[in-house]
């Protein structure tokens, strides 16, 4: 039972950490792509959207080679640690959050951009206001990122190593229990994972609903 709680706690904390880091990186990127015109912007947008479907196992493999003792960042001794899992999940979450933030920012910029910069304000000064306008979409973007991180197995099993009590998450534990033929236990863990996903989705709807009604009050 303690094992079980440890696994659930590790899964959630690793994914929360990854989502937090990914959000901090993706918010400015997503909004900047909408607000600031620059050469190659189109390509960056296409690339970020393409990385939506980045295979976790590929991210895991590349990160494994980079973090390995014989790899370029081997001196950090991060392979087979929770930190390595956070890095892997952050990489997976960034494109999703950045792409969703960009789409929402683009819409808001098209509608309010002139207004926000009409009184001499720079585009940079408009960014916080854009973020304020799209706050409901931000919630969706962040929770979509969290959903991606908490449910993936391919990357964390490679860079985490599925070490009992250290790097065993719900998804890697499910893989292990299945391989030991303990299908009932694997299914129980799967149920918890699905439960978390449903809670996330319910939270998204609740928050989005509240933001919508708040928006209509302003109007």
């Amino acid at each position, binding site marked *: 039972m303690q094992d079980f709680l440890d696994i659930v706690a590790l899964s959630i904390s690793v994914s929360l950490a990854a989502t937090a880091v990914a959000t901090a990186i993706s918010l400015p990127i997503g909004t900047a792509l909408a607000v600031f015109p620059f050469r190659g912007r189109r390509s960056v947008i296409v690339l970020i959207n393409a990385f939506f479907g980045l295979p976790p196992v590929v991210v895991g493999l590349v990160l494994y080679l980079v973090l390995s003792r014989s790899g370029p960042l081997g001196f950090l*001794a991060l392979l087979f*640690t929770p*930190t390595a899992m956070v890095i892997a999940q952050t990489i997976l979450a960034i494109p999703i959050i950045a792409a969703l933030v960009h789409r929402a920012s683009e819409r808001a910029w098209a509608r309010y951009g002139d207004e926000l910069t009409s009184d001499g304000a720079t585009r940079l000064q408009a960014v916080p206001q854009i973020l304020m306008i799209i706050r409901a979409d931000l919630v969706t973007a962040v929770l979509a990122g969290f959903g991606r991180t908490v449910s993936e197995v391919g990357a964390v099993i490679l860079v985490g*190593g*599925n070490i009992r009590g250290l790097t065993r998450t719900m998804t890697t534990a499910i893989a292990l229990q*299945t*391989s*030991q033929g303990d*299908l009932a236990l694997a299914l129980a863990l799967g149920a918890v994972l699905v439960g978390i996903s449903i809670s996330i989705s319910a939270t998204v709807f609740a928050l989005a609903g509240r933001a919508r009604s708040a928006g209509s009050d302003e109007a």
Partner: protein
Amino acid sequence: MSRFRNVLALAATIAAIHASLAEPLSIILASTTSVEASGLLANILPQFTARTGITVNVVAQGTGKALDTARRGDADLLLVHDPDAEQQFIDEGHGSTRRQIAWNDFIIVGPSADPAHVKGGSDSVAALKAIATSQAPFVSRGDKSGTNAAELRLWKIAGQTPDVLSKEKWYRDIGGGMGQALNAASAMDAYTLSDRGTWLSFNNKGSLIVSIEGDPRLLNRYDVIELNPGKHASAKLATAKVFADWLVSPEGQQAIGAYQVNGQKLFNPSAGSPK
């Protein structure tokens, strides 16, 4: 340039925080899946940790992958079971000391309907020949693990090479761990070679039964291998040696021998008299 220096400083800080958070005494043990999946390590490690304060973090992989992990410098100690691959690892200069800690045996398991008519025998090679002749489905690990290597050695004696086998429809290379192979064999009513430890602790046998056992060629030896400090200076070799020494000590051997699943002993300690 100063930005680059900042990034380096940040990385160094993260590494320092990370190192201070890590447990003071812990090693990475790259092991075969069978000692993990059978529950052996989960059972004996608490005893070792209680005595020494050293945490052993187990990364369970097939023997081939475990050896590769150590080659890259990502493990501090090895617990594996493929004599030929181990010898190669030592010949390459990666390993220093190799000691046998225990043995058990491989078995051929198969569907109780027994389409190849091999049930109850003890000649593993004759059984493989019969399976090939009857074209009954056979699941191969296909993952360069110790069990996979043992399987291919037996097929070779039976006159079959991997190249020929891979073209056969009845020979199903699943590229997975022992548990996955047993799950697959159970689902496909296929034969497969398994280590006895994983088999005894496996909970999804379906119609699978032990078809062949007792062949001397089915001996399965587990070795602990320490790394060569000349090649792996960054590994925690002194701490790793404490665990390796404990495994072959009377206390460690007693712990290995005492581990049972459903009243059956899974591993025979053999540090004193290697097989």
